[in-house]
């Protein structure tokens, strides 16, 4: 073989080596989503592991999104392929028709939307009433209607349950219950109150991990008051078409396989035993080893570095965009009074939109992930920058402005030599405000899969795990301080010496 021939052979071999994994991962990934509470994370993790084991396509996890609106929006938008949902939610929140209940009917109604659902996984997640096992056996309580014979039992309900018509008011009417002592109590405290004997009846979610731990009995909804919240997989119709074997594997291993008690046990494993979602899911699937991707939760130190980088990128990019757009807008507002008032009003209105809602609005336009988060954060950072630029420029001493005109300074000379330097203190103050605000607001990006410290906060909230929440919240606070210091430094570079410290 000639030297040249060997070189070509080596190149071909290299191509083969490099090309092989590329070919395997060329199948588009199955993007699995979840909402931000333990059960949703867990079922999504089950789905992800089954897909991985079936080997047809890689998995992309987009877990912990902000709520039904956001996860569903991402699914419709094509940013997700599948996520766990409940039949009641599909009827009420998605199809806006609570009379649709049966799985077949739901599936028929979802078809025109390009969506489909699996058969029920086996558990319901709905409101339920729970009592101590000892109370249940002593009084012979099995169902909610049994409570009618015992009006002396003391009940504590979550404030939401106490008010909602599909909560206590409706339940009492439906069953004609006469409980005399009904109080409002925070959900987190109720289990302890019940087990210590402080109260006798509480409202629970039927798959709550705490049920197993405190040895409670869920009373059967014998007159079918609570709507049907059977867990199913909600997927794009293209998923079963594209990967029929994978979909079949999901149906074979998950559909009808997870009953309420099992789900409660899995929830408890995460919420109470401190296992990761991946570990709990793997234990159900009977896998002895868990791959690295699945293990990612709760390895805080390693996670922190990644989230810090993500957070810095979110803040830096959105701030740069906001400055690049906001300063010219502020200048424009200062030049043209009418346009300016209109502009300041609309930027102000933007600020009154709650940050989470603004993020939700981004989904139909930009899907989920970094891009919509960056757009929303940039918009949110706009107000202080536009307003301060406007104020800084329009409050320059009019005699100094006249003098610039008399000296025949051209537009850009006036801007660069006079207006921007004189307004720099005020403009920098606006940018500093925007920067610190953005560090905080960026924690919400996690709700639409934007990453950053918010991912830890959202996970921590779902797990009711203060350590994880703080692992996101404390670095965010530290970053706000650091960014403030960085901008103090930038201010020294930008603001002319004699103007420093006059306005602050």
């Amino acid at each position, binding site marked *: 073989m000639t030297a040249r021939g060997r070189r070509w052979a080596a190149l071909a071999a290299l191509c083969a080596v490099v090309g092989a994994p590329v070919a395997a991962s060329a199948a588009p990934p199955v993007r699995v989503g979840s909402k931000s509470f333990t059960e949703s994370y867990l079922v999504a993790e089950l789905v992800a592991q089954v897909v991985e084991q079936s080997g047809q396509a890689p998995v992309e996890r987009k877990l912990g999104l902000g709520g039904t609106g956001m996860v569903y929006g991402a699914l419709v938008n094509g940013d997700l392929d599948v996520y766990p949902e409940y039949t009641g939610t599909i009827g009420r929140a998605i199809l806006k028709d609570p009379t649709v209940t049966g799985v077949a009917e739901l599936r028929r109604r979802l078809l025109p939307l390009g969506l489909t659902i699996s058969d029920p996984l086996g558990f319901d997640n709905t409101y339920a009433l729970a009592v101590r096992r000892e109370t249940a056996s002593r009084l012979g309580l099995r169902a909610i209607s049994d409570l009618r014979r015992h009006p002396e039992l003391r009940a504590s309900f979550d404030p939401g349950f106490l008010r909602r018509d599909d909560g206590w008011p409706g339940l009492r009417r439906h069953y004609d219950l006469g409980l005399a002592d009904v109080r409002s109590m925070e959900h987190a405290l109720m289990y302890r109150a019940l087990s210590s004997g402080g109260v006798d009846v509480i409202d629970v979610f039927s798959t709550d991990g705490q049920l197993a731990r405190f040895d409670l009995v869920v009373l059967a909804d014998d007159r079918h008051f609570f709507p049907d919240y059977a867990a199913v997989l909600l997927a794009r119709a293209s998923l079963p078409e594209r990967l029929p074997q994978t979909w079949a594997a999901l149906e074979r291993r998950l559909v009808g396989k997870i009953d309420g008690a099992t789900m409660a046990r899995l929830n408890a494993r995460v919420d109470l035993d401190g296992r990761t979602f991946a570990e709990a899911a793997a234990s159900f699937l009977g896998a002895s080893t868990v791959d690295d991707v699945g293990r990612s939760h709760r390895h805080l130190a390693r996670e922190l570095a990644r989230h810090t980088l993500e957070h810095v990128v979110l803040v830096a990019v959105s701030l740069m965009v906001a400055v690049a757009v906001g300063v010219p807008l502020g200048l424009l507002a200062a030049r043209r009074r009418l346009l300016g008032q209109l502009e300041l009003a609309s930027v102000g209105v933007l600020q009154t939109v709650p940050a989470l809602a603004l993020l939700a609005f981004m989904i139909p336009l930009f899907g989920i992930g970094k891009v919509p988060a960056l757009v929303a954060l940039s918009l949110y950072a706009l107000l202080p920058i536009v307003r301060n630029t406007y104020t800084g420029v329009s409050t320059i001493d009019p005699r100094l402005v006249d003098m610039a005109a008399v000296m*025949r300074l051209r537009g850009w000379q006036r801007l660069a*030599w*006079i207006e921007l330097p004189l307004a720099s203190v005020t403009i920098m103050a606006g940018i500093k405000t925007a920067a610190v605000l953005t560090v905080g607001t960026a924690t919400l990006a996690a709700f639409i899969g934007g990453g950053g410290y918010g991912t830890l906060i959202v996970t921590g909230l779902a797990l009711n795990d203060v350590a994880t929440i703080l692992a996101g919240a404390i670095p965010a606070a530290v970053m706000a301080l650091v960014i403030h210091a960085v901008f103090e430094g930038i201010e020294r570079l930008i603001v002319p010496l004699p103007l420093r410290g006059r306005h602050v």
Partner: protein
Amino acid sequence: MITLHDVTKTFGSRVVVDHVSLVVAPGTTEILLGSTGCGKSTVLRLILGLLVPDSGEITVDGVPVTATTRDDVLRRIGYVVQEGALYPHLTAAANATLPARADGWTPTRTAERLGLLAEVVGLEPGLLGLYPAQLSGGQRQRVGMMRALMLDPPALILDEPLGALDPISRSELQTQLARIFSELRKTVILVTHDVREAFVLGTTITLLNAGRIVQRGTFADLARRPAAPFVTEFLSAQTPPPEMRMSL
């Protein structure tokens, strides 16, 4: 030469400049004298094109002041206002040379001119590196004067240039301005309400009241042949009482 022909300017229903006509000959100093609100500063702003007259015509060296000629007109005028209106973020030197920078002068040419002008207005060159806040009122006004003279315009317009100064720097600068005006042969319009300043600096004096010209002439004309009782009233209001003059 600067001319105003039958110029009128109103703000809402208030007539601020009322049919004013004026011819300022090249190389002379015209004082616009009057109380606060008599319209004298508005006349200056009209000449500079910062305001547009309701009627009448203004010319500078034969060029009518309009939106299209404004740049050409302003090239011929240096402008000085009370307290100098210096840019606080620029050093004295940067303030004074700003018009040259805008015109794209070379650094050498600019530096030469700066040195010369410092001498003309009597500013210590060591002060040129300081910021306005570090200078006295008189020094600031000298820097403002340097800036107005930077491009060597044929005309100067000064709006109460000595208004905010203490009496000593004020009389010092009055003398200096008189010398500068005559040495450089500028066509000057200077607004003031100070009779002594009008006397020291003015070739002719135009006394304004409520937007109208009450009388125009030399100081002697106004003092000896007042056109209206207001003229005498205005001039004598600032005369020191006899006892004071005697003790001086």
